[in-house]
């Protein structure tokens, strides 16, 4: 048959569509990755089998399934999945993928995508934690554990909270928790440097 499929005809007659498909959007997220594009995936499942979090049963969608969903254009399901926020960045999938896809980098890309689009799923600690971390570094140039604790403690039940407090007390006594946040010396230069990369509001 030489006739074009009906979908193509419809697209041609419609107004020019400049929008980028979901698959393309996600592919663009991997610009810095040396890995192969996700459409080279053969759905073998090595990533899911090698992932300690997925094989532990903690992900609602395995990495293999996420790739399939992206390729099939199931944007909503992908955005709703906890998969990438539960990725610990251990890169086992990346080094073992027989098609050379940088799957861990894809997970990073999906995290950024949902943060930018403010589309992260409710009830996850990951997005809040990451944003708090970034703001903290922008203020002082260094990391400070007690600030981070505020991002997750409220999600805990009482027993976990007490456990956490006990551990923190012991660590404090052992001299392993900082009482004051550290900061770098050339903080003004540092902040000007940051403004070259992302526009920050002047008021903090």
């Amino acid at each position, binding site marked *: 048959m030489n006739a074009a499929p009906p979908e193509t005809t419809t697209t041609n007659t419609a107004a020019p569509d400049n929008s980028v498909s979901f698959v393309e959007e996600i592919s663009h997220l991997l610009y810095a990755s040396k890995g192969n594009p996700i459409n080279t995936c053969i759905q073998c499942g090595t990533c899911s089998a090698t992932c300690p979090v997925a094989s532990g049963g903690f992900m609602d969608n395995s990495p293999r399934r996420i790739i399939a969903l992206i390729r099939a254009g199931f944007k909503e399901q992908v955005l709703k999945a906890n998969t990438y926020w539960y990725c610990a960045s251990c890169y086992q999938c990346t080094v073992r993928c027989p098609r050379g896809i940088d799957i861990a980098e894809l997970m990073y890309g999906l995290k950024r995508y949902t943060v930018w689009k403010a589309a992260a799923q409710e009830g996850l600690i990951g997005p809040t934690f990451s944003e708090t971390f970034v703001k903290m570094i922008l203020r002082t140039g260094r990391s400070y554990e007690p600030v981070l604790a505020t991002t997750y403690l409220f999600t805990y039940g009482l027993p976990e909270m007490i456990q956490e407090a006990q551990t923190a007390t012991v660590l404090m006594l052992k001299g392993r928790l900082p009482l004051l946040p550290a900061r770098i010396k050339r903080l003004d230069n540092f902040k000007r440097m940051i403004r*070259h990369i992302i526009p920050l509001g002047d008021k903090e």
Partner: protein
Amino acid sequence: MKTYAYFPGCSLEKMAHSYHLSALETTRALGVELKEIEDWNCCGATAYFHVDELLAFTLCARNLAMAEKEKLNLVAPCSGCYKNMFFTRDHLTHDADLAEHINEALAEDNLQFSGSASVHHLIEVFVNDVGLKEVKAKVTNPLKGLRVAPYYGCQIMRPRKAKEDVEQPRFFEDLIAACGAVPVDYPLRLTCCGGALIITNREAALSLVRNLLECAVRAKAAVIVTACPLCQVNLECYQKQVNKEFGTDFNMPVMYFTQLMGLALGISPKRLGIGSELVAVMPAIKEAQQAEPALAGK
């Protein structure tokens, strides 16, 4: 004397201060100088890369540029810092546009990135630069009979940096053997400890930590040795939580490889920061050393 620009990273300031102390002690004993980068900033950990990659590269590039200014190669004791810095240098040297953009920002702090400083993990310095032969020659207190689980973790091995063997590495075992101790066969040595999931998905992280502890117990290890502050914290400081969650009774000491080396080199435990851990390390070491003469007599 070989000198490196030393990037301690945020964890080593407090939480993993014993790693910092033991890194300085062991390098000094083996004729390597670590010159701390004067005004280093956070490498971005994993959280930064979740939000903005370009910014994360900029943070790492600032540290790299400061090492370049000193004309020194950079060494990081934390596997996360090492990975971030290694790949930032890699991306920037392969992407001139990216480097140009970031250099404009770095100019605000009178810095410039060119890629001249290479990036190394601290363990590489001992294995490749000092050499295990030299380490072995300097050992005055061989830790005979001490069964050690070598925990590589993730980021010193992955992602792949060049053509190294990421599936069957041996250097950690060899380092332990050079200290006179016994590296045990530790099947989960390359499996993730959960990293920052300990905060963002506690349930999953505790389960991964449990597996690692159980595997070490089965291998009859007296101690787990790590090369990363986050692995150390997850494996050690959350043992109580693991025990509560799973009804286990783990009491497994977890130490830094530099502490193990330090003891073998005859440095006092105190100077290696031993004593700040939640699961005491010294009893396991003393027990092994007391048992050893009996075994050797056989």
